[in-house]
């Protein structure tokens, strides 16, 4: 990609739906997904028969031995397309995003398909599942392939993965878990205000954060998003079509993804890898869109693990490297302070449950469309929705007006 994004402002979000987020839904995930999809279709002011594109990312991010049964533990684009077809949809473009940074990756596929004319109305959705039993527990006693270099020492699963760069950051910059409490408290404050959130009406105090059990130092219980059952769906279409639909369109200005700078051991994420690739990702996003960090009034950073908030704030250039811990602790992302950057106003994954990049994308949509209800911000013109680690994930920029 050498120049500006050719499809900037040409594709828009026209509607959405979000299921209630629960630890274990009473309904099968596939049923919840179809119902949420139909609600999103109705919200956008179109019919099931209009949907000719279906896009999803279907990763079931467990380290455990759970089967990823389609329609039960995950829902793929193909599964959804089949079930919408029998309701009258005519999906011609059906794609799944395979990488990490599932929402930005899926949005990119949908935008490309619409801009190319491969689909007119794309249903984009994400269905997350919390299986019975331990989410990451794995009974394996023998390990082959890349994990033989790490698992025999006990380095396994995402907690150990994030603990190493988290501690590297704490040690390098003199940051503390007391400062991290401000991240988690902010996410839970905002999540507590969302009627669909698992943590609705349940904010968290710094004291409770610090008193929770440690899992993999310095990672404690509330540094991790809680696994849930939940589905979100969005309708994307061309900007021209979106302007004829009932909701105010929110435009896609561009996107960028991170690429780790070098091969590493499985789950080995050195801090310098994260920051180098993330800085490159952000530079690509600004160049791609022609919009710089100073114009972003709705940065939505990813927080599946709390240290990602610090990492994203720094790679996006919203505070200097090594300063995010102080920036957040000083109220820099307080959504109730009009002078602060509302970086977790979505509640994030920490404040909603493990919905991956859904909260960030949804907050960009709701605020820029003027649909955030009592949470509506006075100024919301440019949003950036981030997901995953900066060196694996991605970011999408949304604008209230076409570019």
């Amino acid at each position, binding site marked *: 990609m050498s120049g500006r994004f050719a499809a900037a402002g040409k594709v828009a979000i026209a509607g959405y739906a979000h299921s209630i987020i629960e630890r274990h839904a009473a309904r099968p995930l596939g049923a919840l997904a179809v119902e949420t999809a139909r609600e999103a279709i109705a919200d956008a002011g179109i019919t099931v028969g209009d949907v000719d594109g279906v896009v999803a990312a279907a990763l079931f991010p467990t380290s455990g031995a759970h089967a990823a049964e389609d329609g039960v533990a995950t829902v793929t684009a193909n599964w959804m397309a089949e079930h919408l077809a029998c309701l009258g949809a005519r999906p011609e473009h059906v794609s799944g995003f395979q990488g990490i940074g599932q929402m930005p990756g899926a949005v990119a596929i949908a935008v490309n398909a619409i801009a190319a004319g491969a689909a007119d109305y794309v249903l984009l959705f994400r269905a997350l599942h919390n299986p019975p039993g331990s989410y990451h527990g794995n009974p394996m006693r023998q390990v082959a392939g890349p994990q033989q270099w790490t698992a025999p*020492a006990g380095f396994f699963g995402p*907690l150990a993965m994030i603990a190493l760069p988290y501690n590297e950051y704490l040690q390098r910059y003199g940051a503390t878990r007391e400062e991290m409490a401000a991240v988690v408290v902010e996410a839970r404050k905002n999540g507590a205000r969302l009627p669909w959130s698992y943590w609705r009406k349940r904010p968290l105090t710094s004291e409770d954060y610090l008193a929770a059990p440690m899992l*993999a130092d310095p990672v404690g219980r509330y540094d991790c998003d809680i696994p849930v059952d939940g589905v979100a769906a969005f309708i994307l279409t061309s900007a021209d079509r979106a302007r004829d639909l009932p909701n105010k369109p929110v435009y896609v200005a561009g996107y960028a993804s991170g690429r780790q700078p070098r091969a590493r051991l499985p789950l*080995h994420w050195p801090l310098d890898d994260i920051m180098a690739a993330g800085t490159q990702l952000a530079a690509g996003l600004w160049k791609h869109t022609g919009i710089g960090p100073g114009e972003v009034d709705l940065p939505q950073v990813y927080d599946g693990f709390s240290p990602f908030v610090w990492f994203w704030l720094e790679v996006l250039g919203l505070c200097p490297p090594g300063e995010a811990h102080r920036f957040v602790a000083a109220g820099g992302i307080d959504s109730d302070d009009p002078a602060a950057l509302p970086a977790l106003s979505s509640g994030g994954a920490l404040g909603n449950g493990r919905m991956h990049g859904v909260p960030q994308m949804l907050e960009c949509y709701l605020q820029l469309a003027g649909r955030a209800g009592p949470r509506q911000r006075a100024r919301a013109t440019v949003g950036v929705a981030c997901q995953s680690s900066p060196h694996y994930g991605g970011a999408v920029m949304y604008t209230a007006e076409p570019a």
Partner: protein
Amino acid sequence: MPVPDELSAPYWAAAGRHELAIPRCSRCRSLVIPPGQACPHCGSTNPEYAYETMSGQGIVRSWTVIRQSFLPGFDVPFLLVDVELAEQPGLRMIGRLLDGPDAPVTLGARVKAAFEDIAAEDSADGVAVPAFTLASDS
């Protein structure tokens, strides 16, 4: 228990002798962990890795104390160190620090390779897993 393959067998064989051996790409001469089918440094699809015995010396770049294991057979807590080996800048591996979970580890602390002998469940053959201990002068 690791299941060695063609690329990793010399690593585990050396560990069995309590030696830390790391593969070097014969094309770009870089040490690599882990050895991919193509060299992760130069991209050669015919890297013809040759294992070399390391000094075992390195410095701690990060660490964590695991208090909840997702794998069977691990007694918690235990401490894992992210170590940059002395032989090449950026050459990092992860292992247990055998000094215990309360060891006074710091960023930049010097460590040396050590080995943890693990008995196999159903045979007399065990395996040694590379690990680290704090170097006495650090």
